[in-house]
């Protein structure tokens, strides 16, 4: 019998690479949404996003680090947007790693805003590709969790926590 849990937590019949991550941010939903909607600022908290070129309200070009030191690029378009509630995207046909997903925003009252990000993607070279990707920690499910934590840190504290002792170490470590 179906329950109320998200599809990504399903034990059976789950798409292979579906990942859902939730985070609660101690800020009002309007603030959280507008900061998230600013794609060009994503490289500040997304470790593997090299660059996002925003073409227009719906279209953008993504340059993302991939396992083994290479980059993958694709064009993406927003398929649905309800400000303060929902943002959905899909890669354009022909993307190397076809991906789609949506991010939901919910007002959590005194606790701020709940974000639930669901990402569905086709990993390179199937299951083996996913295992390899995981080893390199470029696997989207792991990455999404870390990226959301960094986004939360940026909004709640104004900065991103780092153990780097000085600017030189920070350069070496990256985010």
């Amino acid at each position: 019998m179906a329950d109320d849990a998200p599809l990504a937590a399903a034990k059976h019949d789950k798409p292979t690479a579906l990942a859902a991550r939730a985070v609660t941010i101690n800020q009002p939903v309007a603030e959280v949404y507008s900061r998230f909607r600013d794609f060009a600022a994503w490289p500040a908290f997304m470790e593997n996003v090299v660059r996002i070129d925003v073409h227009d309200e719906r279209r953008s070009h993504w340059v993302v680090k991939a396992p083994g030191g290479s980059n993958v690029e694709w064009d993406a378009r927003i398929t649905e947007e309800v400000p303060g509630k929902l943002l959905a995207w899909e890669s354009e046909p022909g993307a190397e790693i076809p991906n789609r997903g949506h991010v939901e925003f919910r007002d959590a009252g005194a606790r701020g805003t709940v974000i639930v990000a669901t990402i569905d993607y086709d990993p390179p070279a199937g299951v083996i590709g996913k295992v390899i990707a995981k080893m390199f920690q470029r696997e989207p499910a792991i990455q999404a969790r870390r990226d959301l934590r960094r986004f939360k840190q940026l909004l709640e504290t104004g900065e991103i926590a780092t153990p780097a002792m000085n600017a030189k170490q920070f350069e070496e470590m990256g985010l």
Partner: protein
Amino acid sequence: MKAIAWHGKHDVRVDTVDDPGIVNPRDCIIKVTSTAICGSDLHLYDGYIPTMQSGDILGHEFMGEVVEVGAKSTLKKGQRVVVPFTISCGSCYHCTKQQFSACDNGLPADNQDIAQELYGQPMAGLFGYSHMTGGYAGGQAEYVRVPFSDVGPIVIPDGVEDDKVLFLSDILPTGWMAAENADIEPGDTVAVWGCGPVGLFAIQSAFLMGAERVIAIDHFPNRLKLAAKFGAETINFEESAVYEALMVMTGGIGPDAVIDSVGLEAHGFFVDNVLDQIKVSTFTGTDRAHANRQAIIACRKGGRVSMPAVYGGFVDKWPLGAFMEKGLTLKTGQTHVQRYLPALLTAILEEKIDTTFLISHRMPLEKGPEGYKMFHDQQNDVTKIVLKPGMM
């Protein structure tokens, strides 16, 4: 600068490393004037803590002078500060509820994975205590980068010497929170297992909170002597049977509250064991929770169990039945250091709490490796070592 760095089991060295600098706007840099070796540092020394890397700078009990501030720090150059061992942001949900050690943002995002796997949710960051707790360089050094310096460090008035306030960084608030978690009522008898620094501060705190009697349990005569100095009755578990003694001493009732402050020495973050256990389910340190089991069995019906002791993983044969049948309450957790700092500083300034009695040795930073060995080998005589950078 010079710093005490970990290089492996029983191998800590004085390394020369790059000076720290401001990285984030809320950072400050302090020039360390006093830094202590903690009992929990011995777990690093003994090589029990996973996710340590050669060259990691140790130390989480430290204080010093502010020498550099980021754009959003509220501190000023020249101020003397004591730094909490927990790295907490001050603005997440948990920090706003004063649950600082549960801060969402103190750990760098990548370092949160291990704790999330083990505990379900990641905790605050810690200075100088492996990469699982953030990989932050510690305070046994000439200089330290202190994140979130606008909400962590407490400013110390001029003229108050380091030795009086240094332990605000960890063990004093930890002992205080241990007593607070015991929900002490006037007239209570409180039993404290372990008379290390945390236990000794818990004893002082318990009396301040209205306990009529405190019974201290240990096997190091010198530590029991210190406990007695603060008015505790003592049980040496090598000389006497603890449960039998407690039952007679409490008129057959059992202590109203029990405090387990043994764990740091006997247990620690045995994450390596934990991971082994997850994998093969064959090994648990069945004797490691001995003090904790004894405390639960001795505690009176409806009593309170406070556990400042650090446990990292799972314990076997924990008396869950006694716990349930007697209706006990357990409170525990890493210390919410920032919550207690103002009140405890006041208590020190008003001479209601003495901390200096604890210090048995003071030595220059460069003698750190020697200090670790002494602390490790002579636990009866060495109660606390404070390293003083710049001391000749």
